[in-house]
């Protein structure tokens, strides 16, 4: 009985709270640095919109994804703004779970958004999520070690050059590995890298009839190349390394090269965190001359679930967080180097930013060289550079990632890993009804 009263009381209390702050919007974000910074700048927004309160839910990437996906798919209605990636947007938009962002205000200037990024966040010409920061991947290398090896990094290297350089830079005695690459199993971990890499080798996940392609020579070339390279020039423990592990290695000067997200540039070039800050050079992700480079495209973006009661306030917030004004705000408070990158063309035309971020041009070029709608050399039925934007991909990608990390760890052969990946993919795609 008491419980009941308590329960009713609580309901009543929350109803009251509801009435008092009619416009509290709840925002789910990932715990990356740029998002955390935004959270700290909330005051600017509430000063401009005194009738809107912001509640933040900050979670690490995997948990966030589970959390918001469960909520939106069951119409739980817990969030008014969700931070989602390029992977979710096309799938969710297709389910009509997201509100099209058509009320961002007159001064929002949607045309300024980098086209490659906007393309990945739109469906039927409508923008379903506003990019907060965007990234591609590129090569970060140690200029000093490159020089020592007697080589010069071109702006657009080939895989052959990278492999050669990696082997020459490796100096096990000095604890220097020629190259650090992702190896930890996961669709957003090693598979993000390997899928992007495979694009440059002419491979693809599926042909136009959704037939998995792991039995094709292109994949064999990709994986064999990767495993051999890592064996000869990679760090120990590579099969459990993700972004952060490699970042730490690179910052401690243990990697000659590192191919990963462009946002890493701001970490490795930051003298506060990095012991090699002044020795880092950048180059486009490598290719094999087939017309595609091994770089990906990702944008953490803000979307508004279709079920929200506070769409208007939510749009106001999204407009604030992803608008040009926000970039200026961050610049004025924390300097241009800390501005969220990769979303607006105007930022890259800003000389002050170019000066503060030596990697700006290479970042923009990398982003522009990725095309989520045409990611591969051969035609594919899907969208997405380092992923396949279908609901089944996360599970399947992780399975394949596990198999490939086993190949990297030397616990299975490349052929076995590919055969396993093929079997798993055929199984999953048949089940999901793609293969008739």
């Amino acid at each position, binding site marked *: 009985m008491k419980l009941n009263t*308590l*329960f009713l009381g*609580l*309901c009543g209390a*929350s109803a009251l709270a509801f009435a008092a702050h009619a416009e509290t919007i*709840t925002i*789910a974000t*990932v*715990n*990356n*640095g740029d998002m*955390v910074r935004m*959270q*700290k700048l909330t005051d600017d927004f509430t000063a401009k919109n005194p009738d809107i309160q912001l*509640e*933040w*839910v*900050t*979670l*690490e*990437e*995997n*948990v966030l994804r*589970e*959390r918001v996906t*469960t*909520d939106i798919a*069951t*119409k*739980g*209605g*817990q*969030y008014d703004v969700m931070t989602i990636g390029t992977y979710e947007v096309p799938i969710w938009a297709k389910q009509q779970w997201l509100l099209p962002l058509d009320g961002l205000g007159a001064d929002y200037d949607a045309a300024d958004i980098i086209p490659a990024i906007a393309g990945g966040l739109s469906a039927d010409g409508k923008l379903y999520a506003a990019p907060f920061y965007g990234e591609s991947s590129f090569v970060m290398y140690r200029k000093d070690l490159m020089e020592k090896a007697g080589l010069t990094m071109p702006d657009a290297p080939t895989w052959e050059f990278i492999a050669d350089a990696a082997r020459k830079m490796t100096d096990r005695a000095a604890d220097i590995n020629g190259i650090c690459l992702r190896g930890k199993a996961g669709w957003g971990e090693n598979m993000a890298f390997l899928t992007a890499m495979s694009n440059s080798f002419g491979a693809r996940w599926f042909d136009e009839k959704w037939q998995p392609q792991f039995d094709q020579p292109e994949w064999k070339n990709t994986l064999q190349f990767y495993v051999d390279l890592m064996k000869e020039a990679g760090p120990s423990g590579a099969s459990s390394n993700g*972004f*952060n592990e490699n*970042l*730490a290695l690179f*910052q*401690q000067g243990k990697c000659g090269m590192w191919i990963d*997200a462009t*946002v*890493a540039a701001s*970490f490795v070039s930051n003298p*506060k*965190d*990095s*012991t090699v800050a002044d020795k880092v050079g950048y180059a486009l992700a490598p290719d094999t001359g087939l017309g595609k480079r091994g770089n990906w495209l990702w944008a953490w973006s803000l979307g508004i679930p279709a079920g929200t009661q506070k769409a208007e306030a939510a749009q106001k917030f999204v407009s604030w967080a992803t608008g040009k004004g926000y970039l200026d705000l961050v610049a004025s408070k924390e300097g241009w180097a800390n501005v969220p990158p990769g979303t607006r063309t105007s930022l890259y035309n800003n000389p002050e930013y170019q000066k503060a971020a030596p990697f700006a041009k290479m970042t923009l070029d990398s982003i522009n060289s990725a095309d989520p709608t045409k990611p591969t050399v051969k035609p594919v039925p899907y969208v997405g550079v380092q992923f396949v934007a279908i609901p089944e991909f996360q599970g399947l990608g992780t399975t394949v990632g596990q198999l490939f990390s086993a190949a990297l760890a030397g616990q299975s052969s490349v052929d076995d890993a590919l055969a396993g990946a093929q079997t798993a993919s055929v199984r999953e795609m048949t089940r999901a009804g793609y293969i008739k």
Partner: protein
Amino acid sequence: MARAVSTRRKIGFTVAAWVVALLIFFPILYTIITSFKSETEAIAGFSLVPSGTLESYAEVQAQSNYFKFFLNSVIIAVGSTILALVVAVPAAWSMAFSPTKRTKDILMWMLSTKMMPAVAVLVPIYLIFRDTYLLDTRIGLTVMLMLINLPIVVWMLYTYFREIPGEILEAARMDGATLWGEIVYVLTPMAVPGIASTMLLNIILAWNEAFWTIRLTTTNAAPLTAFIASFSSPQGLFWAKLSAASTLAIAPILIMGWFSQRQLVRGLTFGAVK
């Protein structure tokens, strides 16, 4: 009865025990040490001497309001524990003092309710919570954790109660005590150590429950597990910050554990009743 132990032997045991204890404690110690390092120091290789910076703590506090999460953790952990005890004490009483042929089966069945993998029932539970408006409420989470830990609580109380001689309860019955009087005046006070250690164990389990507490909360009811989830594995260096957040999250339960350690051990022994 106690024989004088030679000091040499005692020193030998002391050294051995301290070495083992420090080895076991080392990961936690290292986390605490790391929390006083800067991020670059944290990955710079093995060192037990931090620079003593409070930078990470400042950043952690700037990013999240620790106290709010802490409060939710306390309410949920303590609330669910008390609720579980209220339900479990009578059940354990009847199992211990009025057992039937099926008592053990019922106990086993209760424990078996914990065997459903949480991930498999996330969607059903989420739907139930949504439809009962319990998402992101402390009461929802409290009831949930109560149900999750109830079997363990019943089990532990049952084992403690069984060590209480039935004659004492019969004496109370002869002395004119009603069932209520029997439980309140005789059983509960006698089982205090057992109940206390059950409580502590349950609070620890509830405090550390990191699946449902994250999946079923948003802002209002989010406890320290959610606080931790906002510091683990972001892009970039995070060791010092995660260590600081972890230290903050572990500290209250660690301190509580330290204070109640004697009680915990005594309760589990239950040597008090003869």
